[in-house]
C-alpha cells in the first residue's frame, strides 16, 4: 500500500511537470506581452518593467526561475491585479471554491446513491423509469442552462410554502451564508447526481441478483438489513472509482457556476484572468487545479483499495 502510494506520487511528478511546462510554453507563445497598452510606453520604462518581472532574461532562465519559485509555492505576481500575488489570490479564492465543490460532491453522492438504489430496487417499474429519465435530463442539460432557470424559479419568482414566501438570493457570497450556497451547490451537483444515480443503479441491480444477497434473504434477514448491510456495501463500490472524474468535472463546472452566481472563487478568477490575459494567474490556477485533480484521483484509488478486499494495490 505504502509502496503503491509512493509510486503513484512519483508518477504524478511527470504529469505535473508536463502541465507546468505546457502552460509556460503556451503563455510565452502568446503574441504581445502582458504589459502592452494602447499607448506605447517610453522604451526605458518598458525595459524597467520587463526587468522588474525578469522578462528580459533568456527563456530558459525564466523557466527555471518559475520552477524554482513554484518549488517554494510562489506563483509569482499577478500581471493585472498588481496589488496581489497569484498565491494570495488563490488563497482567497480556494476556500470559497472548495466549500462549494465539497458540498456539491457530498450532495451528489448522497442523493445520487439514494436515487440509484431506489431505481434498482424498483427495477423496470415506474420509479425506475422516472428516476432514469430525470437522470437523462440531468446529464444532458449543461449547468449553464440549469443555473439561470433555477435562479428564475427559486430566486426571482420565489416559492410559496405553507404561507411563507421563500426566495433565495440570485448571487453573491455573503460570507458563505447557507442561503447563498443553496443554488450554486445544487446546480453544480445536479449532473454528477444524475451520473452517480445511473452508476449506482447499474451496480445495485447486479448486486441484488448476486448469490450472497439471495443467501441473506433466504436466511430470513429483513429486507432493509439485506440492502444496507449487504447490497449497498458492494453496490456503492463503483462510485468510489468515479470520484476522481466527478471531482474533475465539478471543478470545470465551478468555472461557470462561480461566474453566474458571482462567487469569489478561483474559478471566477480564472475566467477573468483568461479574458484579461493575466498569464501568471491563469498558470497558477491551472497548476492548482491539476494538483487537486491528481491528488484526489490518488485518494479515490487508495480508498477503493481499502474498501474492496479483492483489489490489491501493488
Amino acid at each position: 500500500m505504502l509502496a503503491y502510494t509512493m509510486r503513484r506520487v512519483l508518477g504524478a511528478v511527470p504529469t505535473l511537470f508536463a502541465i507546468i511546462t505546457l502552460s509556460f510554453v503556451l503563455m510565452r507563445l502568446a503574441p504581445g506581452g502582458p504589459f502592452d497598452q494602447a499607448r506605447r510606453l517610453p522604451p526605458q520604462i518598458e525595459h524597467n518593467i520587463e526587468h522588474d518581472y525578469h522578462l528580459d532574461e533568456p527563456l530558459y532562465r525564466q523557466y527555471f526561475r518559475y520552477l524554482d519559485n513554484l518549488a517554494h509555492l510562489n506563483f509569482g505576481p499577478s500581471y493585472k491585479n498588481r496589488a496581489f500575488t497569484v498565491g494570495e489570490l488563490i488563497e482567497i479564492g480556494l476556500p470559497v471554491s472548495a466549500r462549494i465543490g465539497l458540498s456539491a460532491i457530498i450532495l451528489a453522492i448522497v442523493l445520487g446513491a439514494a436515487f440509484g438504489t431506489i431505481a434498482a430496487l424498483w427495477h423496470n417499474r415506474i420509479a425506475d423509469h422516472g428516476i432514469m429519465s430525470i437522470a437523462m435530463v440531468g446529464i444532458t442539460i449543461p449547468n449553464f442552462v440549469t443555473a439561470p432557470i433555477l435562479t428564475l424559479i427559486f430566486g426571482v419568482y420565489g416559492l410559496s410554502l405553507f404561507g411563507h414566501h421563500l426566495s433565495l438570493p440570485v448571487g453573491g457570497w455573503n460570507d458563505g451564508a447557507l442561503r447563498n450556497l443553496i443554488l450554486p451547490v445544487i446546480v453544480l451537483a445536479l449532473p454528477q447526481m444524475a451520473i452517480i444515480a445511473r452508476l449506482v443503479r447499474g451496480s445495485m441491480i447486479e448486486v441484488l441478483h448476486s448469490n450472497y444477497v439471495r443467501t441473506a434473504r433466504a436466511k430470513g434477514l429483513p429486507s432493509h438489513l439485506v440492502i444496507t448491510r449487504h447490497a449497498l456495501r458492494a453496490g456503492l463500490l463503483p462510485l468510489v472509482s468515479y470520484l476522481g472524474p466527478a471531482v474533475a468535472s465539478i471543478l470545470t463546472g465551478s468555472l461557470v457556476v462561480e461566474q453566474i452566481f458571482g462567487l469569489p472563487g478561483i474559478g471566477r478568477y480564472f475566467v477573468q484572468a483568461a479574458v484579461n490575459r493575466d498569464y501568471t494567474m491563469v498558470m497558477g490556477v491551472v497548476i492548482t487545479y491539476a494538483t487537486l485533480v491528481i491528488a484526489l484521483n490518488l485518494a479515490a484509488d487508495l480508498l477503493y483499495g481499502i474498501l474492496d478486499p479483492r483489489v490489491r494495490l501493488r
Partner: protein
Amino acid sequence: MTDVTAGDKSALIIGARDVVGRSLWIDASRRMFANRAAVASIIILGIIAVMALLAPLLSPYSYDSINYHLISCAPFWWPDHHVPCFAGGAHWFGTDALGRDLFVRVLYGARVSLAVGLVATFVSLFIGVSYGAISGFIGGRLDELMMRIVDVLYSLPFIFFVIILMVVFDRSLWLLFLAIGAVEWLTMARIVRGLTLSVKETEFIEAARASGVRGHMIILRHIIPNIIGPVVVYVTLTIPSVILAESFLSFLGLGVREPLTSWGVLIANGAYQIETAPWLLIFPSLFMAVTLFCFNFIGDGLRDALDPKDR
C-alpha cells in the same frame, strides 16, 4: 437422417441460392429503425440541421441587423403581457438586446454548434483512430509508451488548456475546432486500441500477414473496417460532448465572436436578461437540449443495434 432424393437436393440448393445474406449493417439498420426514440431523434435532428442550413431563406431578417426600435421584444404570441414590447412580423422568437431577430440567431447558432460538433468530432476521430490503431497493432514497447502518454494527458484538466489556447491565440473558429478535437481523442484512442488488440489476433489478419500485406495496409483495409461499429457509437456520443464544450467556452466569452453566434453565446446573453426577457434564454436552451437529447438517443440506439449482446 431420412433419404434425400436428387430432386430434394437440388431444391435445397436452389433454396439456398434464394437466401440473401444479411450483413452486420443490414441487421443493425433493421434494429435501429425498430427503435422509435432513435428514429424520432434522427428526424428531429434532420429538421434542425435543414433549418440551420436554410436559415437565410426561413426568415426575412439577417442575423446581424440591429433594430433599435425593437429592443428585447417578446414574440407576438408570448402569453405574459408584462413585457416591454411585442415584436410583430416574422420575429417568431422575439428579439434580443440589440433588436436582432432571435429566430435567425438561434438557427445561425445551430450552424456554428453543429459545425463545431461535426468538425471537432472528425478531428478527434482521425487522431484517435490512427493513434489507437497504431498503438494496438504494433504493440510492445511502443504501445506501452503511447498509452502512457494518453494516461498522462488524461489526468490533465483539459478544458483549461483549451481555454488557454483560446486566450493565447486569437480566437478563431478553426482553432476552436482543433482545440476541442485535440482534447476529445483520448477516449477514442483507448477504445480503438482495445479493439485492435482483439482483432489483430484473428485468423484473417494472420492470413493477410502471411500473404505479405504491409502493416499500414492491414490497419487500413482489415483492422479499421472491423472495429468501425463501436467507433461509430462513440462518435455519436462525442458529438454532444463537443457541442457542450463549445457552448461552455462561448458561454464564458471565449468562443465565437459577435456578431456570429452559437448556442452558448445566446444562452449566456439570455441568462443576463432572464428576468426581463426569458425567451432569450428559453429558445436557445430548448434547441440545444433537444439536439443533445437526440444525439444521446441515437448513440444509445446505435449501440443497441450494433452490439445486441450488450442490451
